[in-house]
């Protein structure tokens, strides 16, 4: 009897965390007031979902009365297939990402002009001569922070400090690994049930986390000014120079767009989240991580009774 309940709970839990939770969580915009805790919650939901999904079939055959060995084999095969799918997704995402980054870093190193900044722990800070106002980091073993010349010109000293602190936070808190994990899980589930909104939300949360780190270092005002300076009103500035090659801008709405920056700014105008809310989210996340383990306990108990 316990076996049936546990199996049912694992299956329902797995289906819920894989299919429903990403959509539900992405809609809870109030969680953005505590980006750190909320990202931990996202990880907890994702990992417990994976564990529940992998355990469901083996637990079902082990706990249900059956004397057909092929059923047992089939259950293991289901779990193994899921595991393989996950590993393949991890491999594909990881290698593609590292190849892109290595290729891009090579170009940046050849073209860019290296500048020294004492506040950057990244291996290099590079200025690229042309392009839109852009600041980004290339994470990895030889990490880089890349600025376009136009970004450098547009930012005042305090704003530049803010932007550097933001990128440095991405690098030292290894947000790339966090986002890689979510991308791997995202690509591991069938395309039709993928929650794109969930991936966008964790991306936004990572930006907000880096914003907070930057605001702690340089103050919220400097960061806010930097965000506005970078995002606002540079239409038509690029292009037209040096041989008249006009570079195409990114398609509207695909990027950390004006609306996303507005959201990030508003987070600094809002009241900070109360301590109990942060503790609450943290507790829920830990409970979520423990859930698959807790579900298995009664099963282990009953099995040991029979031995």
């Amino acid at each position: 009897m316990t076996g049936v309940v546990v199996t049912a709970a694992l299956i329902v839990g797995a289906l819920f965390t894989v299919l429903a939770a990403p959509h539900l969580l992405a809609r809870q915009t109030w969680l953005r007031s505590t980006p750190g805790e909320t990202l931990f919650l996202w990880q907890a939901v994702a990992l417990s979902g994976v564990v529940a999904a992998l355990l469901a079939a083996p637990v079902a055959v082990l706990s249900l009365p059956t004397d057909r060995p092929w059923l047992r084999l089939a259950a293991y095969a289901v779990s193994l297939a899921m595991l393989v799918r996950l590993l393949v997704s991890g491999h594909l995402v990881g290698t593609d990402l590292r190849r892109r980054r290595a290729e891009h870093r090579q170009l940046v190193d050849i073209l860019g002009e290296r500048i020294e900044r004492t506040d950057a722990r990244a291996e290099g800070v590079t200025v690229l001569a042309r392009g839109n106002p852009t600041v980004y980091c290339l994470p990895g073993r030889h990490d880089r922070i890349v600025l376009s010349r136009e970004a450098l010109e547009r930012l005042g000293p305090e704003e530049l400090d803010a932007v550097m602190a933001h990128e440095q936070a991405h690098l030292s808190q290894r947000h790339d690994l966090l986002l890689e994990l979510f991308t791997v899980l995202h690509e591991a589930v069938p395309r039709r049930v993928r929650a794109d909104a969930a991936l966008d939300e964790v991306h936004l949360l990572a930006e907000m986390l880096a914003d907070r780190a930057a605001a702690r270092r340089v103050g919220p005002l400097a960061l806010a000014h930097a965000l506005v300076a970078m995002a606002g009103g540079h239409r038509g500035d690029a292009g037209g120079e040096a041989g008249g090659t006009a570079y195409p801008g990114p398609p509207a709405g695909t990027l950390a767009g004006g609306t996303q920056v507005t959201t990030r700014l508003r987070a600094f105008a809002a009241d900070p989240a109360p301590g109990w809310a942060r503790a609450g989210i943290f507790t829920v996340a830990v409970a979520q991580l423990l859930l698959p383990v807790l579900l298995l306990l009664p099963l282990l108990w009953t099995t040991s009774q029979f031995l």
Partner: protein
Amino acid sequence: MRQRNTSLGDLERVVMDTLWSHGPELSVRDVMDHMGGEKDLAYTTIMTVLDRLAKKGLADRTRDGRAWRYTAASSREELAATALRSTLENVQADRKLAMVHFLDDASPAEIDDLRAALAEVERRHG
């Protein structure tokens, strides 16, 4: 190891600059001459750097007797365009991971929203 890689990377940059400004068809000796006495570099070091650039596809080389002659595979402008394209591709292919910020072209309405949000932040923290 880290240190060595970095300095080789810096050298690659200087050598590419030389290929761009004094090319095409430079021998290792030519590159050394054009780089001037600014660095006391061994012939073999420059040879290694050029070899690496050729392997990476950044330089083309042709046989000239027993030596190689090197030419930049594409102009600086072409390479800059490639770099920009690869930034955009990263953003579009997996924008969640590209970590590119501020690359957007905001519409006037979005800029108004942005300024309103900034005013809120200023009221709070100003």
